[in-house]
């Protein structure tokens, strides 16, 4: 199951993570079933590494990010951060760890309190974690604002006075205020216009490198993910389908779902090959996922054996490249255009 061959101790180690949500129904709103939003997710993240997490809606990527920070409680599995198991930690201990793990949210309009001045938006975490004196904090906030490309006098203004891109810069400054080692960036540029998106991606990339941050970069835009990530993980219906170094995943995808995702991404180049691998149908209901490989109901290459439990296993097929697919013959055939 484990694919980790690194000698260096990973900063974050997630094993068999599961998050189930009850589905309530009937007159008494009793649980009538369960949805496994995240099912058996395992991966490692090194210090200073960017792992892209891609998937479509319902893939569980956002739930995974939030469970890892324990913003929602995982129902099973282990999360080790900097050598410490954090799944069982009490509130006070967790708060100490949380200083080192932060999140940047998707919607810069919803994630900033409209009644707080920017100074308080960013300063709140400093106060909670008891960092610096009052005067210190002001300087720190000014420095943070400049670091994310805003002027220091932005601190006395309210979020509504800023554009979407500027708000996302404020969100990044807030996450960086407590000097974390690890950031979950949950669709941080999806709500922004294309011209502004590039500014924010560049900023995140620069800061990540400068500060040596480990980042879990969650997104559905495959091109942005490749651009920023060292490694990429692909999720579908709560499960990990494929995980590999970026170049390997984009140039030699092994999972039919990854291939379909890559071929569906629209390319503005009119000369780009339009050999589309169109998937049939929709993602099945997560309440009743297919047995075996969860992708098999839409997979053009599915075999009867794909319905067996063994078809779920993630196998390493190249160094650092693991895939949950029993068909080794698909990728070579696709590559030669057969």
């Amino acid at each position, binding site marked *: 199951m484990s694919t980790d061959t690194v000698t260096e101790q990973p900063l974050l180690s997630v094993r068999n993570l599961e998050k189930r949500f009850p589905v309530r129904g009937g007159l008494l709103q009793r649980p009538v079933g369960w949805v496994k939003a995240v099912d058996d997710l395992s991966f490692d993240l090194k210090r200073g590494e960017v792992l892209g997490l891609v998937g*479509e*809606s319902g893939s569980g990527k956002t739930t995974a990010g939030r469970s890892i920070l324990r913003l929602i409680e995982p129902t099973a599995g282990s999360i080790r951060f900097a050598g410490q198991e954090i799944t069982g930690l009490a509130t006070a201990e967790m708060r100490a760890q949380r200083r080192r793990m932060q999140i940047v949210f998707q919607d810069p309009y919803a994630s900033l309190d409209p009644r707080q001045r920017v100074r308080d938006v960013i300063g709140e975490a400093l106060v909670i974690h008891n960092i610096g004196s009052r005067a210190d904090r002001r300087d720190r906030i000014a420095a943070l604002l400049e670091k994310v490309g805003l002027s220091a006098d932005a601190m006395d203004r309210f979020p509504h006075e800023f*554009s*979407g*891109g*500027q708000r996302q810069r404020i969100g990044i400054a807030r996450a960086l205020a407590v000097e974390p080692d690890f950031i979950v960036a949950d669709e941080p540029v999806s709500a922004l*216009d*294309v*011209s*502004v*998106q*590039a*500014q924010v*991606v*560049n900023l995140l*990339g*620069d800061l990540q490198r400068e500060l040596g941050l480990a980042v879990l970069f969650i997104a*559905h835009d*495959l*091109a*942005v993910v*490749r*651009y*920023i990530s060292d490694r990429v993980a692909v999720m579908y219906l709560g499960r990990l389908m494929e995980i590999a170094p*970026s*170049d390997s995943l*984009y140039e030699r995808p092994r999972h039919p779902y990854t291939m*379909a*995702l*890559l*071929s*569906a*991404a*629209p*390319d*503005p*180049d*009119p*000369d*780009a090959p*339009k050999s*589309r691998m*169109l*998937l049939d*149908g*929709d*993602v099945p209901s997560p309440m009743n996922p297919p047995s075996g490989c969860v992708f098999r109901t839409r997979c053009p290459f599915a075999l009867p054996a794909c319905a067996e439990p063994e078809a779920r296993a993630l196998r390493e097929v190249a160094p650092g490249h693991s895939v949950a697919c029993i068909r080794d013959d698909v990728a070579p055939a696709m590559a030669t255009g057969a």
Partner: protein
Amino acid sequence: MDADLTLDIRNLQTHFTADSGVSKAVDGVSFAVRRNETLAVVGESGSGKSVTSLSAMRLIPTPPGIIAGGEILFRGRDGQVRDLARISERAMRSVRGNEIGMIFQEPMTSLNPVYTVGDQIGEALRYHQGLDRWAARAEALAMLKKVGIPAAERRLDEYPHQMSGGMRQRVMIAMALACRPTLLIADEPTTALDVTIQAQILDLMRRLQEETGTSILFITHNLGVVAEVAHRVVVMYAGRIVEEGDVRSLLKSPKHPYTRGLLACMPHLGQRRGDGGRLYAIPGSVPSPVNRPAGCTFAPRCALAEPACLAAEPVLEPVGPDHSARCRRWRDVQ
């Protein structure tokens, strides 16, 4: 209006009154959609692309909005040309949903949750084409099959919430095309969908257009989607058209610095960050529609801007066959 045009918008002005002044959301926009053609209008938020399409459907909320000037010439099924900016609301009701089909971004908000999809598709057919209940139902079923909905007989009696986002968008398309419109206006129809579903819907729209010959006005912010569906493209920025042309020359050799910048700042699948690599980014942000800069509206963000650009707005001038750009320095855009 030329005989091969379905829609001819001339000097459209759509304004909104706000506390801070009059916002010229659409400020003198002219373009035409030909028969059998998909015209994409591209732009970012605040460009006026959606207000343009809402104006063409006469769905601008008044007040605060008003179509302050210009013509929206539309050729109906009978070949007659009418100015939609001038006709009565009553006359417009017989055009909307009948001769002009509409698809919006979020199908859940455009579909009525308390009626079955069969009833909703049938309603337009009964209202506009005077079909009886059974004929409308049969036609609705045929449309659901046409847009590729599996088990259409069963789906006909389902409600929108029982369907996935992709299925709902197929229902919207079935509804929009049920009355055989001459023009389909699609405002970000795939933006809320996942990429694999988006690919299905774009494929469907292309196929249906080939079959029916309907003209499509396709509003989007995504240049990748433009390359997939459009024959011609209009690029809008701050309420104005900045570039227009056939899809190939516009995407291959853009002549306006804004279009060029938009293309450059989209990472493509093969692009790696590598060491120290950065994405091209257009500095600054879109100007406020109430207080636009004089001269070229893009000049404050443009690397090629010179004093003359700030003094007077450039005209939309031809830069090639079926290709024009509003930039005095278009020859320098590489």
